[in-house]
């Protein structure tokens, strides 16, 4: 069974530029999550989708971050404009009824903002 796919694995940009990350969850998983993991800290939930609807985006900095899951399958997380403090690993996870609610994580996209 294919796992959660994320791309790109690494991205280096300058501040004020924009960046987009893509995530393809495990087939059939209705719930998709984006987490931000800053170096030395635990992952923090940015946004949670159930199918193509947003369940929780309370910690998403909406002035610069946006995310969509238009067809209820893959998802894109965008940052525009990026700040130095956005340097982090962006983790995508998915879960479904058949997984008993267990979250499966992708390998993450490491962003460095210079």
């Amino acid at each position: 069974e294919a796992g959660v796919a994320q791309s790109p694995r690494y991205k280096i940009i300058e501040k004020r530029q924009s960046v987009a990350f893509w995530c393809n969850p495990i087939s059939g998983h209705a719930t998709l999550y984006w987490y931000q993991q800053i170096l030395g800290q635990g992952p923090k939930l940015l946004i949670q989708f159930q199918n193509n609807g947003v369940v929780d985006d309370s910690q998403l900095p909406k002035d610069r971050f946006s995310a969509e899951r238009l067809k209820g399958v893959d998802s894109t997380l965008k940052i525009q404009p990026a700040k130095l403090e956005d340097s982090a690993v962006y983790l995508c996870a998915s879960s479904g009824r058949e997984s008993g609610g267990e979250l499966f994580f992708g390998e993450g996209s490491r962003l460095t903002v210079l």
Partner: protein
Amino acid sequence: AQSVTQLDSQVPVFEEAPVELRCNYSSSVSVYLFWYVQYPNQGLQLLLKYLSGSTLVESINGFEAEFNKSQTSFHLRKPSVHISDTAEYFCAVQRSSNTGKLIFGQGTTLQVKP
């Protein structure tokens, strides 16, 4: 709201020695508890979980954790560690009435020395 505190940021230990990684949580509602492991340059993997039933849960690679409701703890233990156990370990909590939205601790780096 829930929160998780991992009491040690780094735990150095010699190979074949026992280890305990400490985790305390705070919640006004019943919760599920998890330990995830992150090997270098890899995604988060579920190590073990407590949902209900026996308070002692085990993983396939020799780790165990005990849910202690009175002390609000979920410490991770292994009687004899291997070099390959070197990784970052994250404790996480989830409301038992809600699937998803894991809240993570800050992480503990386990460094196993030969």
